[in-house]
């Protein structure tokens, strides 16, 4: 774990703890990818979130907003103290991502399956404009149940959107339990490869591997790319990792103590 991913985890946990509830599992599983993207890959200017030369990120699994908010705050899009207003009345940090409320959020998401299409549309727009900006989108493995995802994949291949990288957060869980039990997706990597994508599967908690996969994807011409992230839902909070009930947690006293301990460990590690 890098300093940056530790910081993102720390801020994410602090904000969720302050609020008392939230989508912990799906936020924690994408932290390492966000760290790589925002530290090493994306062309961005936090002081100018609407810069038209920027790279875009659409968090299609919009319920993981807290991890992205933490990342954006750490990059300087807004003050870290704002994170403590997550989900407050009148907040600019709602549970699901909102492009009109939060600096650095490129698309409004929350209805699963829709963000990936918007990302594809941004990529298509950039192609029409002949611009070099890149588009990244992160979708959930449960989200892949939505047929719209496959429409977006087909469209991307047909339109040769090599400026697009789709991440699938394969954390093996959705809201009601294990994805294999609810809707067996079989082999996601092979399936998406069969749509014509340059597709690889990597350890979604290994930043070196993620970075290498992204660079390879960016160098792949004429076809869109997909990086399947082999992840653990709630990664970083041992007690919740892979637990069936970790999608949305309303913290009990006991769970608060668990979170506090992890916060302490992260703070130690960052000293």
């Amino acid at each position: 774990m890098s300093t940056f991913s530790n910081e993102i985890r720390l801020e994410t946990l602090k904000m969720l703890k302050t609020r008392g509830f939230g989508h912990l599992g799906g936020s924690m599983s994408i932290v390492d990818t966000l760290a790589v993207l925002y530290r090493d890959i994306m062309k961005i200017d936090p002081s100018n979130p609407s810069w038209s030369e920027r790279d875009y990120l659409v968090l299609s699994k919009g319920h993981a907003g807290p991890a992205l908010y933490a990342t954006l705050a750490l990059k300087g899009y807004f003050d870290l103290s704002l994170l403590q207003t997550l989900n407050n009345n009148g907040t600019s940090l709602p549970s699901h991502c909102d492009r009109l409320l939060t600096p650095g959020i490129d698309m409004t998401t929350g209805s699963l399956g829709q963000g990936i299409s918007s990302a594809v549309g941004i990529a298509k727009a950039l192609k029409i404009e002949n611009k070099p900006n890149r588009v990244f989108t992160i979708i959930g493995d449960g989200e892949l149940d939505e047929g719209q995802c496959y429409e977006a994949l087909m469209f991307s291949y047909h339109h040769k959107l090599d400026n697009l990288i789709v991440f699938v957060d394969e954390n093996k869980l959705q809201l009601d339990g294990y994805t294999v039990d609810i809707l067996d997706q079989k082999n996601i990597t092979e399936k998406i490869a069969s749509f014509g994508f340059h597709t690889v599967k990597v350890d979604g908690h290994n930043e070196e591997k993620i970075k290498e996969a992204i660079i390879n994807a960016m160098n792949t011409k004429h076809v869109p790319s997909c990086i399947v992230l082999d992840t653990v839902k709630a990664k970083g909070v041992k007690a919740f990792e892979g637990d069936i009930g970790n999608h949305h947690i309303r913290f009990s006293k006991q769970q608060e103590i668990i979170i506090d301990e992890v916060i302490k460990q992260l703070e130690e590690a960052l000293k």
Partner: protein
Amino acid sequence: MSVHILDTAIQSSQELRSTYAETLGELIAENKKIVALEADLMGAIKTKSVQDAYPNNFVNCGIMEANMVGVASGLSVRGFTPFMHTFGPFATRRCFDQLFLSIGYSKLTLKVIGSDAGVSAAHNGGTHMPFEDLGLARLIPNSTVLEMSDHIMFKDILKQVSSLPGLHYIRMVRKAMDQLYREDSTFEIGKGIVLRDGSDCTIIATGIMLIEAIKARELLASEGISAAVIDMFTIKPIDQKLLIEYAKKTKLLVTAENHNIIGGLGSSVLEALALEQVRVARVGVLDRFGQVGTQDFLQEEYNLTALDIVKAVKENL
């Protein structure tokens, strides 16, 4: 059919989602032609007990609302009575054409439970907060559109619709609501209920706005204004006869709904009274999107409180 109105509403701890799970279990126990469908929100509506008890009559489809409606239509072709649940926006917007064609136009049967009515979606925010579901459901020819007033009504309505053909859209909040009716009440779909009588004006309300209407009635009484309160739990077909009766009997009608004033209860009432000499004011969401917040905050933000009803009465009476 007889409705027994409680003189004063009781604070109840019975969550409507538990009522759904319990009643669904009872219905399936008696009728194996009922199949319950979920789209990965079983946890939110607490139907795991039904899945465990009747795995053959329960399908958690995955996150695929449009396909779920299509599957329901196929089940209906084979004579099953499908019930499906998801959050209101995903139960209507996300699968509207499927509801319209594969169920409505095809004259098939589906009971749709749309949860987290309006501001009760609270911290799930704007993407999950339906202010338009009743309007959408109403636009499908021959649909029946209902909003639940308490858990007593919900249980009775679930039982009734389980043996009725066609498309029913049942809007509900997942948590507990104040209890308005005695346990042995039975309800007639299409008939409004005069919850409290009055002679100066009539407040016509649904869902969480009923308790606000009752509070508003008390506030108005203290100022010498007598208000009737009608529970119009069937938004379609709306009880036109009762509306005309109270349009004649009182000087002003005020609708109160946890929904956009376009398309829902307020619109239905206006349509039903288009040819009458009557004044109608509407309290509800003024053509806005949702946002995150506590339900109390949101009720104030979207003008969904007793005081908003009082204001509408006093400004227009």
